[in-house]
């Protein structure tokens, strides 16, 4: 009667040939081998395969596989050759972006470090309030009021006073652009001056003052300016470091 050898038995037979069974396992298998001619035949066949494989002559290497310095270098330069253009590309892209940022800054003409659109708005609103008050009072603008008038002119362009020719003259007299944006302190000062002129303006100007000294808007604009600068510095660093890396890798690979 033919007995079928299962996987577990084959594994035990194979391990037994290599002396990999424990003493107990080996003793149990030896007993089985004595009892089963099929198992014994399988064991002998596996042993024959094992001996056959182990009897195969060891092949001699057909040549020496020693490595030349060049061969080891060639391998490394393959990788570096692949990396070098990548670094070059990143460097070029960073440079282009940096140039675009700088050009954009130049064209817009607004230095991001200068304060600040919020303060400018405050000044404009204050001037809008100031101009009608001056008209009512019929006073000539004093030298102390020049900053207010200047911004009033600017404000007039945005908010023309209906039917007021004098305000138009004042607008013409005013400088086209302020030399520098007034600081929040100046805005506050302007507010104080107009406060003295009338109670009607007082309420609005108080609101304006609050807006001018409000800590949120200036800090937002500072963050904006800082972000702008950080982006520029970051791009500069990336462009320089990647450019250097590309150069070094190219030299290495050409060695």
């Amino acid at each position: 009667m033919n007995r079928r050898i299962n996987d577990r038995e084959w594994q035990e037979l194979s391990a037994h040939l290599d002396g990999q069974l424990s003493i107990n396992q080996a003793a149990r298998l030896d007993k089985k081998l004595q009892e089963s001619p099929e198992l014994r035949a399988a064991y002998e066949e596996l042993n024959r395969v094992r001996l056959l494989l182990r009897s195969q002559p060891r092949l001699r290497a057909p040549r020496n596989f020693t490595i030349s310095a060049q061969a080891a270098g060639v391998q490394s330069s393959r990788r570096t050759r692949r990396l070098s253009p990548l670094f070059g590309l990143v460097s070029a892209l960073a440079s282009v972006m940096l140039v675009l940022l700088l050009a954009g800054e130049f064209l817009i003409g607004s230095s991001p470090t200068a304060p600040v659109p919020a303060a400018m708005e405050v000044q404009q609103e204050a001037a809008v309030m100031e101009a009608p008050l001056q008209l009512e009072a019929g006073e000539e603008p004093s030298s102390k009021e020049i900053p207010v008038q200047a911004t009033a002119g600017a404000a007039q362009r945005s908010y023309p006073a209906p039917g007021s020719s004098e305000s138009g003259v004042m607008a013409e007299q005013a400088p086209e652009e302020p030399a520098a944006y007034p600081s929040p302190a100046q805005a506050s000062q302007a507010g104080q001056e107009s406060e003295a002129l009338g109670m009607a303006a007082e309420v609005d100007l108080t609101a304006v003052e609050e807006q001018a000294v409000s800590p949120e808007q200036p800090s937002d604009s500072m963050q904006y300016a800082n972000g702008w600068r950080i982006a520029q510095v970051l791009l500069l660093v990336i462009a320089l470091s990647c450019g250097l890396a590309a150069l070094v890798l190219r030299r290495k690979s050409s060695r």
Partner: protein
Amino acid sequence: MDESGLIRDATYGDLDAFNRLVLAYQDMVYNQAYRVMGDVEAAEDATQEAFISAFRNMRSYRGGSFKGWLLRIVTNACYDELRRRQRRPAVPIEPLTSDDEEIESPSWIADTGELPEESVLRNELGTAIQNCLDELPDEFRAMVVLVDVQGLNYQEAAEVIGKPVGTVKSRLSRARVRMRDCLQQVWELLPPAYRLVDERLE
């Protein structure tokens, strides 16, 4: 200089020291590559690739059996190449008949020179064994070569393939059974010593 000294120097990038190790181990590495790949050219490529890779990764060698470490590298190099071949199977070089049909067993490859009988027998047996090895799945083939051709024990083989000893046992036993099935057809080629075992069984 002793092997550990050469290994230490090679770790620090001494190419001469490494090349002395290459000369000591190149037969073993080439044998592994040849038995796994099944042809001379691919075995040479895998051997060279393995030594270059070993030199470049000497710092990752953490002691233990240097032989086992090299066998691991060359076995992995062979696996990589076999996987590459599976993705892009090469067109076999087969001679064509006058009708442009492939001849299945090209007789023009066979060596027709007169050879002594024993040599012919050995060559045929060697070819038969290699053919049977080639038919094994890659993992089984690598295992049977590591243990039965390279003579590693189960623990060493487990370290080479990075698997537990149980996996070695299982793969080796299945590989041997498949080899037995394959070699059934060529038992008559066996040398007398092996045939005696067969006759004794019968």
